[in-house]
């Protein structure tokens, strides 16, 4: 089945401030006791959103004005820590289709691209400008343009970056590599035989 070509993502955006937001923060480990990813969206950023008693805390993710967001803006080193695909899966299931951050931890980045979620890096000044714009234009659409490597919001046109290979795979609808991997089975058998170990 051909995958969608992801040239751009458009939708309302939300700003989640902070650097080094780790995957434990995105989806706390205790919610990973599951054998499918269904339902993970509900627990996205759970401990940031709720206190010990389950009361909502003051956070943009609890702000009604941003409840329809499909694009997330955050700080540096987003998605560091565990390799859990539960993190991008919970973002995806909570409706997020693109992430903008200072930069991304590698495994998180790869996991997200595999799900067709573009992750673009943006420098600090641009992030600050975009955060401000999002705050004053809650619910208004933002476009993450993977093709042009731009983020557009109202009058703002901000440049962003993404590793070439990942970008190509989104643009060409080849972000899930399984079919291509499967097509090389003969070569794989040969390598398996050549290698000295079992």
């Amino acid at each position, binding site marked *: 089945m051909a995958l969608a070509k992801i040239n751009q993502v458009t939708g309302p955006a939300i700003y989640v401030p902070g650097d080094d937001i*780790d995957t434990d*923060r995105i989806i706390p*480990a205790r919610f990973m006791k599951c054998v499918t990813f269904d339902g993970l969206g509900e627990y996205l950023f759970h401990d940031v959103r709720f206190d010990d008693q389950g009361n909502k805390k003051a956070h943009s993710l609890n702000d009604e004005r941003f409840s329809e967001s499909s694009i997330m803006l955050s700080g540096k080193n987003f998605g560091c820590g565990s390799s859990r695909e539960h993190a991008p899966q919970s973002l995806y299931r909570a409706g997020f289709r693109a992430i903008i951050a200072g930069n991304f931890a590698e495994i998180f980045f790869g996991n997200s691209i595999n799900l067709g979620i573009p992750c673009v890096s943006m420098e600090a000044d641009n992030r600050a400008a975009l955060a401000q714009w999002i705050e004053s234009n809650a619910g208004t659409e933002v476009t993450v343009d993977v093709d042009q490597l731009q983020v557009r919001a109202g009058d703002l046109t901000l440049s962003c970056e993404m590793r070439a290979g990942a970008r*190509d795979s989104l643009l060409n609808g080849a972000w899930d*590599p399984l079919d291509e*991997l499967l097509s090389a089975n003969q070569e794989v058998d040969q390598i398996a035989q050549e*290698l000295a170990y079992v």
Partner: protein
Amino acid sequence: MKAKSLFEKVWDAHTVKTLSNGQTQLFVGRHLIHEVTSPQAFGMLREKGLAVRYPERTFATVDHIVPTNESAEPYSDPLADAMIKELRKNCDEFDVTFFDVSTGKQGIVHVVGPEQGLTQPGMTIACGDSHTSTHGAFGAIAFGIGTSQVRDLLATQTMALGKLKVRRIEVNGELAPGVYAKDVILHIIRKLGVNGGTGYAYEYAGDVFDCFSMEERMTVCNMSIEGGARVGYVNPDDTTFEYIKGRPYAPKDEDWDNAVETWRSFASDDGCEYDDVVRIDAANIPPTVTWGINPGQAIGVDEFIPSLDSVSNDDQAGTKEALEYMKLEAGSPLEGTPINVAFLGSCTNGRLSDLEEVAKHLNGHKVKDGIKAIVVPGSQIVSQMAVEKGLDKIFTEAGFEWRGAGCSMCLAMNPDKLIGDQLCASSSNRNFKGRQGSPTGRTMLMSPVMVAAAAVTGTVTDARNVFKN
């Protein structure tokens, strides 16, 4: 022939082809799985009607969710129970070897692989777990991967990856007494930053690594990911081969000599090019403790908690957030910070040598009243060996609880959790907010002996002043 690093040699030997997006299709020799990140992957296989291509290359164990204080099934947590049963079912259906609890070989996946001799030099290894970098201690290239890649591996024994650059980190000279492998890696992360390793494989080398045991090398490689490096490795040498020899999956008889020869040939060539080289003087590494909410927020045990004006502009926000969360006062000494819980275990420091080293010091000391102290062997085999040596008695006499094997309090997927804002002196690898099970729980990472010193005094303390013998 061009001089090559181990990383390049292993990468080249396992390259199937270049994919249309420019990534490499890499053959993976060993695939390790556990209960948390594999069930969805098996689900995807079923959905697509695919089989496991090389079931003999995948090995499973169960670690994250196993309770360490009960062994009877069903587990009291129905979700945990469902997960172990699912893994059992998947391994059965797809013909994958499972080191289940009943085999006596169960444990944390990164302890079990090396213990069984599955981890060998020159291999590519992958597991749906970021601390897979541990296996690099053997001169393997070992990747932590996500669940979609677990699916790819099950279906094809390959995955799509971009090639990494290689940074050689040399630690030369001699470590001061009371400074351990854990301090070495915490120091490296402190110096290079939590994302300093992005895009790199770390090659650890120098006098210190030459002298390290395999378990010490594993401790360092384990936490490569905490420095942002997906892969960390040490070139294989006689220490490596000695460790592997005789283990269940090690090559035997005439195969052994050939294997050693091949393994040796994977070591980085003299004069090969690195993308970066960092040199660290071993003598400058103190017993290191994290005070913040990422593993790079670490200082020497005799240093002071950073104040906002002592850090760069870039680190202001992060420092402030960490000070608030950790409830620490800027500028105050780290030593003397009261702790509530002491945790010994995890894939970083839950091996036999870790327990032996602590037991050596702990003998004759008592855990301070009011401190909860637990020791969790990394595997059933570690546990059994420790018991044979009488270590369990030393621990329990000192006031530690002796538990069953698993990930335990390293993360919150089993009954071992912090409560409220308890502060835990921990031999594990992550001090993220909420990592140990309570959304306000606090973690300080340190070496196992430092954890024991904290347990004994009830505060963060330089172990060298506690265990003077």
